């Protein structure tokens, strides 16, 4: 039943943005700035590889493993999972995306791969386009739905229909970004082995 009103007893006091996580994000962003400002190839590569791997794996796992499972759960089970999972994702995803993009740009510049006469320049442009599409899906559809679900769950009587509608949006957009990450893997392995 889609318009099930989730039992108010299931609603718990959770934080939409975990305060402890913000400290971790602050440390990671500070370390990223240090890596860029010191121009250390190892540090830049570390942030790009770790950030990129985390981003890709999370998107693939969400899109093809967690998403389909969530789609088959009852609205109350989805709500319970979401309350514990989404606040963490709100901090993790923007941080890993920032690390990947900022460090990736620096890495490409460091290795003279940003230049237009680089022999795989078209592959690089393809990666920009893939990232652009993923950013539009993630920031235009996925993240707003994610935050809206959390706000709905904070209500004394969350509306199951609203949660189901927003979660459907989340599941489909996670699947789309997961599929785009396959393109990222193809492009990045091609660039790394050139």
């Amino acid at each position, binding site marked *: 039943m889609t318009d099930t009103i989730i039992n108010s007893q299931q609603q718990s006091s959770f934080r939409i943005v975990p305060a402890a996580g913000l400290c971790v994000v602050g440390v990671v962003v500070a370390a990223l*700035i240090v890596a*860029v400002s010191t121009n250390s190839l190892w540090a830049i590569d570390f942030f790009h590889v770790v950030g990129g791997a985390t981003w890709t794996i999370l998107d693939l796992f969400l899109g093809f493993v967690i998403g389909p499972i969530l789609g088959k759960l009852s609205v109350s089970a989805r709500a319970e999972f979401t309350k514990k999972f989404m606040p963490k994702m709100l901090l993790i995803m923007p941080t890993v995306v920032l690390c990947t993009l900022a460090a990736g740009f620096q890495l490409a510049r460091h290795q003279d791969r940003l230049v*237009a006469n680089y022999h795989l320049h078209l592959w690089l*442009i393809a990666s920009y386009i893939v990232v652009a599409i993923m950013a539009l899906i993630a920031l*235009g559809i996925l*993240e*707003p*739905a994610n935050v809206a679900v959390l*706000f709905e769950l904070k209500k004394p009587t969350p509306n199951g229909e609203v949660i189901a509608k927003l979660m459907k949006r989340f599941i489909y957009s996670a699947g789309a970004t997961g599929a785009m990450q396959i393109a990222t893997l193809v492009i990045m392995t091609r660039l790394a082995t050139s």
Partner: protein
Amino acid sequence: MNTDTNKTTRNLPPVNLLCVISMAFVIGAGVYMVSEIPYAPNYAVVFSLVIVSLLVFLVNVAMLAKVSMFNWKVFFQVIRWTLVAYAVISGVLIYVFVFDKMSSKSLSLLIAALILFALNVPLNIAFTVAQYQ
């Protein structure tokens, strides 16, 4: 009668769609500029993309401002904090471009694009949250 569901189906301007369109123009401008490095991009193209994005954003804000039955309290609560978050994200990216000594013309356009990006994302998130309140 489910009042929450009615709230989601009432007549609201297409804020989400316009945010995505505005973001698409600035992201397009950014992709084009970066793909032209080390050569100067066609600034007229980049400028046009940024201006169109700005216009879409302003139309979006104007349409939203006319909405009367809306939970502005929640909207401003959400937009305040998301603006802080995306200001940090955009700030780090601007730092990278400044650090790389990008030409002042390219840098100004990239900063303008990043500011528009940092305004559109919070607007989109805050609107999505507030429309269900």
